[in-house]
């Protein structure tokens, strides 16, 4: 469904919003049949959507709102003006190409997909499991889904009465294995992760094979995860392709080329002529074909650069670039800019390698550098499986719950790769705690520990004077409910037996 895009002033949109439904006169010929128009104020992001019911030729009329005073050609019947979340220009498509620039009233398409929720897990369970869960509910005991799955095998061999007995015993056992109320789970988790941490290597690990890639693992990686760094030291993505593409080597190699960020220096030599103040780009044919770049791609990329004159020589492939301002400084700047000018590829992805998975015999791509949002938009990529090791990026692109899962997966993988076994529940607790407030928060001074409500607990952790001074200035009150503060003042801590207050009520005589 085509729609049109144009730039307008805030004032015009305000009057339209106020007076809609209304007729709006614009200065271009528009084909009838257009129902949607997107409006931008800054030519970068689109913030308003106009619903259009009819397109007519412009006739002078007092009820019509004019976009401009002169040159009006068409009248749009605007039904509603809807403000929306900003859509960047790059999301619009013309034919199959991404838009990078546009002219007013251009016809474009906005690809969209229907958003559907995941199917409820209850539907995916087998009827036997459901039956057991229902039975447990009737008996007023709680058992987990995995427990119910295990019980299905006994369901057939046992008589109903025996099975009921089994169910009750399982439930009783579960109850006794539960963690006690007021148990200090956080401390147990900290110790359980901390102790194996002392056995971890400080070494980074290399992928075996000719094309190797560096990935931070071991203790540095674990620290990175709990510190919630903005950018991990070795960002890396695992890119899966859609099932119909992942067996074909040709398509895989094309995707690799599409992913890798190719700059001018990767496919051409740059020769600087200081006497004539010229830069000559000598494309290397072999490198160009290897990276699937052609001459026009190169010219397109150069056209985006400002402050230069591009002279394309038809007789040979060389491209001559001349800075508009003649100075050695400028010449040097242009040369440096040219080196890093992106021709194609996803920004941020330095390299991509493809490897065959030994079990499924399908191709999986690994990248150096990470840009989840843009990679997921590529047609061949399976957007449901592809992931990155940059947790903050996952939180931004896929949401806080995905980030929680990523923290859990990454920390579990880091530990198990070193042959260390930590109970999963400890890692889940850390992941849940880090994502509690809706954003990924580090463990430590800047994050969870730094935001404790108790002054004494914060002072006992790091930068004692800062917290005490601040508390004194602001008159903070410490209710002494935590562990650290009670130890400081010499009271029993509020955990375990200390959690219970005994009140003695004397017999009345």
């Amino acid at each position, binding site marked *: 469904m085509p729609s049109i895009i144009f730039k307008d002033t805030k004032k015009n949109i305000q009057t339209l919003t106020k007076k809609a439904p209304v007729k709006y006169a614009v200065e271009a010929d528009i084909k009838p049949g257009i129902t949607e128009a997107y409006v931008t104020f800054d030519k970068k992001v689109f913030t308003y959507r106009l619903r259009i019911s009819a397109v007519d030729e412009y006739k002078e009329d007092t009820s019509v709102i004019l976009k401009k005073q002169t040159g009006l050609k068409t009248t749009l019947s605007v039904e509603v003006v809807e403000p929306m979340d900003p859509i960047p220009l790059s999301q619009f498509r013309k034919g199959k190409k991404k838009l990078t620039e546009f002219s007013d009233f251009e016809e474009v398409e906005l690809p969209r997909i229907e958003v559907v929720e995941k199917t409820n897990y209850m539907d995916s369970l087998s009827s036997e499991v459901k039956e057991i869960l229902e039975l447990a509910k009737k008996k007023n005991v709680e058992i987990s889904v995995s*427990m119910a799955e295990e019980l299905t095998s006994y369901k057939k061999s046992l008589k109903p009465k025996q099975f009921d007995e089994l169910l009750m015993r399982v439930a009783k056992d579960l109850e006794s294995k539960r963690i006690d109320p007021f148990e200090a789970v956080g401390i147990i988790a900290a110790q359980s992760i901390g102790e194996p941490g002392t056995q971890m290597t400080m070494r980074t690990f290399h992928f075996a094979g000719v094309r190797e890639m560096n990935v931070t693992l071991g203790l540095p990686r674990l620290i990175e995860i709990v510190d919630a760094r903005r950018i991990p030291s070795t960002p890396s993505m695992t890119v899966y392709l859609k099932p119909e593409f992942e067996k074909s080597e040709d398509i895989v190699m094309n995707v690799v080329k599409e992913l890798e960020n190719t700059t001018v220096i990767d496919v051409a030599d740059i020769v600087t002529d200081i006497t004539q103040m010229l830069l000559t780009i000598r494309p290397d044919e072999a490198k160009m074909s290897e990276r699937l770049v052609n001459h026009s791609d190169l010219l397109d990329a150069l056209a985006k650069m400002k402050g230069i004159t591009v002279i394309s020589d038809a007789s040979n492939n060389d491209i001559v670039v001349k800075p508009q301002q003649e100075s050695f400084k400028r010449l040097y700047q242009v040369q440096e800019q040219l080196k890093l000018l992106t021709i194609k590829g996803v920004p941020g992805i330095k390299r991509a390698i493809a490897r065959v998975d030994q079990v499924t015999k399908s191709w999986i791509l690994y990248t150096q550098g990470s840009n989840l949002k843009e990679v997921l938009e590529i047609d061949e990529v399976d957007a449901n499986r592809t992931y990155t090791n940059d947790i903050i990026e996952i939180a*931004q692109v896929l949401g806080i719950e995905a980030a929680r899962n990523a923290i859990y997966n990454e920390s579990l993988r880091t530990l198990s790769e070193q042959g260390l076994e930590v109970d999963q529940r400890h890692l889940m607790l850390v992941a849940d705690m880090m994502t509690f407030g809706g*954003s990924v928060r580090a463990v430590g001074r800047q994050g969870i520990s730094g935001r404790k409500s108790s002054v004494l607990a914060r002072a006992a952790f790091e930068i004692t004077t800062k917290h005490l001074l601040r508390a004194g200035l602001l008159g903070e009150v410490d209710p002494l409910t935590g562990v650290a503060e009670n130890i400081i003042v010499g009271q029993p801590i509020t955990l375990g037996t200390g959690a219970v207050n005994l009140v003695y009520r004397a017999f009345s005589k």
Partner: protein
Amino acid sequence: MGKFNVLQHDLVPEHHVVPKKDEDKVLSEIGIARDLLPKISRSDPAIKALEEIHGPLESGTIIKIIRKSPTMGYSVYYRAISSEVFK
């Protein structure tokens, strides 16, 4: 919305909006006040996707999250939409 559906990604667990009339029942079941629930930002991609289906969601709405858990099979978690926006 772009070309991919956030809610269908493997890392993203099931998100369901708890209907207004069921909210009190849920809160009494887990025995916690609404403002003490874990938060989910108003600008969270999963919330944006849910808004495409259910229309605008006000802050304070409870989201039921059903996670695939390696220990329990499935586990249920609740988050309340907070008006905080993180960048």
